[in-house]
Every structure is written in C-alpha cells, then in structure tokens.
C-alpha cells in the first residue's frame, strides 16, 4: 500500500522535475548552454519540454480517472484516435526544426516563450493521443515523424552550410548526428511499448471491438 502510494507520487514528481529542468535551461545561468550549443537547445531542452508535457498529461489523466472514471471529456471528443494530438505534435515539431525559428528562440524572449509553451503542449497532446490511438494510427504518426527527424538530422550533419546563424557548424553537425540517434531511439521505445502494453485504451479499445 505504502509502496503503491510512493509509486503514485513518482509520476507528478517526475513531471514537475522534467518540466522545471527544461524551463531552467531558458533562464540564466543555464541559458548560456542553449545559447552556445545547438545540442543543448535541440537535443536536451526541446525533448525535455516534450517529455515534461507528456508526464504532466499522464499525471493529470491518472488523477482524473480516479475522480471520474467514465468521463471522456471535451478533449477526448476532438481527439478521437489521437488524430488531433498527432497533428498538433507534427506541426509543432516541424516548426521548431526550422533553423530560422531556432535562431529566433535564441535571440527573442517572446519566441523562446512560444517554443516552451508549444513544445510542452505537444508533449501533452502526444500523451493524450497515444492513449487513444490504435496501433495503425500510431504507426502512421511514427512513420511520418521519425523519418522527418532522421532526414533533418542527416541534413544537419552532412551539409557544409551553417544553417543557424546562432550556432557554429561543429555544433550543428553534432546536433544532426544526435537527432538521428534520438529518432531511432524513439522508434525503438515505441516498438518496445507496443509489445509491452499490447492492449490500447479508450478509443483504441473500442476500435478493436468494432
């Protein structure tokens, strides 16, 4: 019982910790890390923001399920099979992969704030979407998002053009390689998760019954 309660407290705690860590990278003294290194910006802070949003959504969902088990909620109605959530995450991901927007987030505080909010929300949307998407819809999303990550990564690592005015070419090449690795890792984690939790929930379960 007490172990279970400890476990239950772990999710909100990690959600808060990951989000706080990602936010800390946007304010001094840690801000110099994302200002000087594209790796810290794109491979540490951005994924942390997405993870923070996803963990917060997971914590919120658990708390809501405990309070009102049967409710679907308005978000559920506009996110059947996770379609809207996946669409949102794809659009936000594509936006913050543009070198021009990455530069802007380094230079303009307003752009940085938009980046924080949108990537965090994209993480929350992903968590919401994966919970209600059948494997086929998940595969469709993974199959478009991960090749995009790999393609951008290969391009960043192989072009001799310096794409971000804010970062050195060496930093860009390291980021490109890391982006390929991170995309492949995300694919592996998704596959492992699919095998582990063979049974999806919510809409997905309904779809399987249908």
């Amino acid at each position, binding site marked *: 019982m007490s172990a279970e309660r400890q476990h239950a407290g772990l999710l909100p705690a990690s959600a808060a910790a990951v989000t706080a860590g990602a936010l800390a990278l946007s304010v001094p003294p840690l801000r110099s890390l994302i200002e000087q290194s594209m790796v810290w910006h794109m491979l540490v802070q951005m994924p942390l923001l997405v993870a923070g949003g996803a963990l917060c959504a997971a914590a919120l969902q658990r708390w809501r399920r405990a309070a009102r088990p049967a409710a679907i909620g308005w978000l559920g109605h*506009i996110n059947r099979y996770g379609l809207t959530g996946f669409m949102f995450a794809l*659009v936000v991901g594509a936006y913050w992969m543009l070198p021009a*927007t990455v530069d802007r987030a380094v230079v303009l505080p307003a752009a940085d704030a938009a980046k924080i909010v949108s990537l965090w929300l994209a993480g929350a949307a992903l968590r919401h979407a994966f919970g209600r998407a059948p494997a086929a819809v998940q595969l469709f999303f993974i199959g478009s998002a991960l090749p995009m990550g790999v393609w951008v990564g290969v391009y960043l690592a192989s072009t001799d053009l*310096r794409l971000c005015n804010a970062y050195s*070419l*060496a930093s860009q090449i390291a980021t490109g390689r890391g982006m390929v690795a991170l995309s492949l890792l995300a694919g592996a984690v998704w596959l492992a998760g699919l095998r582990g939790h063979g049974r999806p929930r919510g809409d997905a379960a309904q779809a399987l019954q*249908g």
Partner: protein
Amino acid sequence: MQAPVQPAASDPMAGLAATFAASLAVLLIGLAALFMATGGGAGFTTETLRRSQVALAPAAIPDFSLVDAQGQLQSLHTLLAQDGRVWIVDFIYTRCPTLCLTLGSVFQQLQAQIVEQGLQRQVGLLSISFDPANDRPAELQEYARRMQMRPEVWQLVSLQEAADRRRLLDSFGIMVVPAPRGEFEHNAALHVVRPDGQLVRILDLNQPAAAIDAALAAGLTPLQAAVVAAR
C-alpha cells in the same frame, strides 16, 4: 474489423466530425505559422530570410563613428556618401584565420575586377571590423598590407566605440558566434550599400560578379557619377 452497419456506439467512424474539424484547424493554423516563419516560403534559414527581406525592401543603416588604418575618425554615413560610389561591404576581424581569409580573397578578386573593368568611380569596397577591442589602426594597417588593399578601391575601418558593436551587427543582421581558440564564426556575405546608407542587396560570398552587377544597378548612372565627381 469489417463491420458494415453497426450501432453508432461501436461504429469507428461515429463522432469523428469534431475530431476531423479540430485536426483540420490545427493543420491550417500550423501551416499559417510555418508560412509566416519562412517569410512566405522565401527560406528556412535566418540568412536566406535576411537576404530576401533586404531584396524586397532596402534597410536603412544607422550612422557610426569609425576609425581607419591611419587613425582618422570618420562617420559611416560620410564615408558612404563621399563620392556617390555604391559600396560592397563585408565584416571581418583581422585575427581571423579562416573565413575572413576567404572573404579577404573574395575582396581581392573584387578589387582586381573593379580595377580591370575601370569601375573605381562606381563601386567601392569597404571592410568593417566587428572586433573593435582588438582591431586598432596598427592592426588595420597590417591587415591592409597583407591583403594588398588599394586605398582608392578598398577601404578598411573599425568602430571607434566598442559599445557600438552590437548595434552595428544588428543593423546588418550579422550574428557573431564565439568559436574555439578565441575565434568567431559569423554569417559572411557581400552587402551592397548605396551612398545614402541603404542596404539594398545581400549576396553570397561566391557571387562576386553578381555583387558588382547589383552595385552598378543600385548606383548612379555614369553621367550622374561624373557630375558628383566634378563637384
């Protein structure tokens, strides 16, 4: 899975209208954001956007106090307006071992072409150091010697006030990134600036001929130039 006619509750397509509408709205808003971020598809890097913006609408460059290799003080606007020439401007720092050498040799080529084609009255070259703390007249002299600059074609200046550095770089859209061993990386390009201080075109380093054409197109006609020179 193939259920022809099912009660609404278990029909996978039931209740999807709201989701489709929301997904479509997200897609459209996202495309609009991407459209704006790329300047309407003009480019996806800050550099291409900077260049296309300037090509669409010239940018007014503010005035700065400069110092040249002889230690003479001069304002940027006075320098630009001195004889009606259009200027091809680049940014350097004299300690630079790599990119500025490339830039330097591009400017050497430009100098040779200007002399060869007899365009000294129409097109001038101006190198501005963005490292005013280190680049004082002595360093400028050494750099001018190394680059074999001909003063009637190619001028070299540094900022008088180190505090102006940021404003100068911002006004041209240059971002300087510290690199290892005390070096800098920066977006190097050829900036075409009219005598009235308007930045009208930004061209790639490997387009020196296009930069001369752009400068000639932005400048006075030969007759106008002759009138200015006679004054």
